[in-house]
């Protein structure tokens, strides 16, 4: 039977269907266990897709094409369906993000209470615009719709932490604090790596 599609297109479609178009970074045992726990809650496993993406993101920082294909293969959800979900939600990151994601509330109440000044402050301090990540990989700035804390506007969420009644001075304090913690962790991590190497060489 003749097809309305060119052979190359059919090939691409076949690949995307079977998840072979991209190298598949398989899911870890932990990731699979966490995803499996969700199955029993739903009539159809399609519902687990979003949570599975969130689990993968928790372990890997973001959802790469490879991760998306891995989840698609594991849940047997078409890549296109999973991608349409992944790109729909602002909390699923299809690009790498920094260790600390800043969600600055830009909604009406926060706007009235001066969130634009805070945004300028953050942008100048970190030298990034919304959607960008600092060179040291610590911060990503995102604008977010209403965070539902409007009586304490202006507000922002850093990671999962809410910060309320913000002033420009608070921004300095919060971001400096986060930067210091991340730098210290980075040092400890490097130090630990270093000592492991040292142990190895001692062997």
């Amino acid at each position, binding site marked *: 039977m003749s097809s309305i599609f060119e052979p190359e297109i059919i090939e691409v479609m076949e690949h995307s269907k079977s998840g072979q178009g991209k190298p598949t970074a398989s899911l870890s045992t932990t990731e699979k266990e966490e995803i499996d726990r969700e199955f029993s809650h739903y009539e*159809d496993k399609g519902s687990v897709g979003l949570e599975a993406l969130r689990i993968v993101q928790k372990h890997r920082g973001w959802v790469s094409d490879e991760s998306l294909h891995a989840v698609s293969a594991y849940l047997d959800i078409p890549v296109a369906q999973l991608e349409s979900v992944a790109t729909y939600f602002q909390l699923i990151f299809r690009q790498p993000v920094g260790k600390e994601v800043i*969600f600055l509330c830009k909604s*009406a109440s926060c706007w009235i209470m001066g969130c634009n000044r805070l945004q300028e402050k953050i942008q100048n301090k970190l030298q990034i615009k919304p959607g960008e990540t600092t060179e040291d990989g610590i911060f990503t700035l995102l604008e977010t719709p209403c965070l539902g804390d409007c009586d304490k506007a202006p507000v922002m969420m850093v990671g999962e932490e809410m910060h309320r009644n913000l002033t420009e001075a608070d921004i300095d304090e919060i971001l400096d604090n986060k930067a210091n913690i991340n730098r210290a962790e980075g040092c400890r991590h490097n130090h630990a790596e270093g000592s492991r190497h040292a142990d190895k060489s001692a062997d």
Partner: protein
Amino acid sequence: MQTNPLTNPLTKNIGPHNSATDIGHYRDNGGYRGWRKALDMAPKDIVKLVQDGGLRGRGGAGFNTGLKWSFVPSGEDSPAVKYLVCNADEMEPGTFKDRLLMERDPHLLLEGMAIAAYAIEARTAYIFIRGEYHLAAARLQQAIAEATEQGLLGSNIQGGDYSLEIHLHRSAGNYICGEETALLNALEGRRAVPRAKPPFPQVSGLWGKPTVVNNVETFCNIPHLIDMGAEWYRSLGRGEDAGSKLFGVSGKVKNPGTWELPMGTPVREIIEQHAGGMQDGLQLKGFLPGGGSTDFLGPEHLDVPMDYDAIGKAGSRMGTGTIIVLDDHTCPVGLVLNLSQFFARESCGWCTPCRDGLPWVVKILQRIESGEGRLEDLELLREQAGRMGPGNTFCALAPGAAEPLQSALKLFEQDFVDHIEKGCCPFA
């Protein structure tokens, strides 16, 4: 916050500290009494009681909750599987009431959901919660575990035949998921675009099964309505509508916050007494009575009671009952631009007036705000607001976006004209 259980059933357990009421404290304070009472009633009698109580949906639409439940097929010939869903995707600009209820008294929501599920004969329920509400999700998860351990949820509740599982489904940040059919698509793992109605979810909802979707605050009204009866519940309201309600005020007032007050409390009382009035040196220029997707009202409407019909007659909607106050030093064009940007960003892109109309509105408003507007732009905005109005789109996002726009063009027309004639924003 006042904690009189007779007048403040929604917030009686909420103290000054940011902690959640645990199951022990909740039960000591009369918690799960309504649920135990409900288990001795016939489901259809609960539906009738809720309908008689006059509870109207607190998510914004204000539909009679019991009536909504009564559309679910019941009896022996009805489908065996039905679902109950809690819409906890609070994301309406300026709305911060469901967060409070879930973070501080999670068992109240669970009890309300349990009664509702029993009333429509559902054995599985979902709480569809905003991805950003981490604390609320953690506390609800804990509360579900506590209630299950005490035999109030799970299999054979209180030793009877009825079983109910409540699952937490975390969303990931998308305004349109608050629309109930979009929410159902999201819950099924699809892209969250709204569905055509009919069929209504009560007949064909989640996975094609009869489904009821109610807002967090709506469920929180159920336990005491069942416990104390319809007559008592109706008497809580001061005006036409029954019950109490969480009202909120944000913007440049002295004491922004949330308070549980009788339905029908006048706007003036909420803004001047509870929110402490305007900050020094500022005048109230207008207000959005129930979140970002409601029409602006002016100072002449301050004495209107916060009742669904009264606010409707004044030309707006009760919406979520959380008031955003606009002061005379804040630019109304800028505020409408901010709201339009939000709606443009959150449009799912399914219907043309919304997908293409909203970015166009944003473009025109940006032009006016930056002093490059033309007088014809006002007519263009009015036309656009008309095109985004009810009946032209699948869901209420675009009509909601049109409300602050069309009303601002009426109430604050001179400010729009000033921007255009002066060639700049007079508030900058």
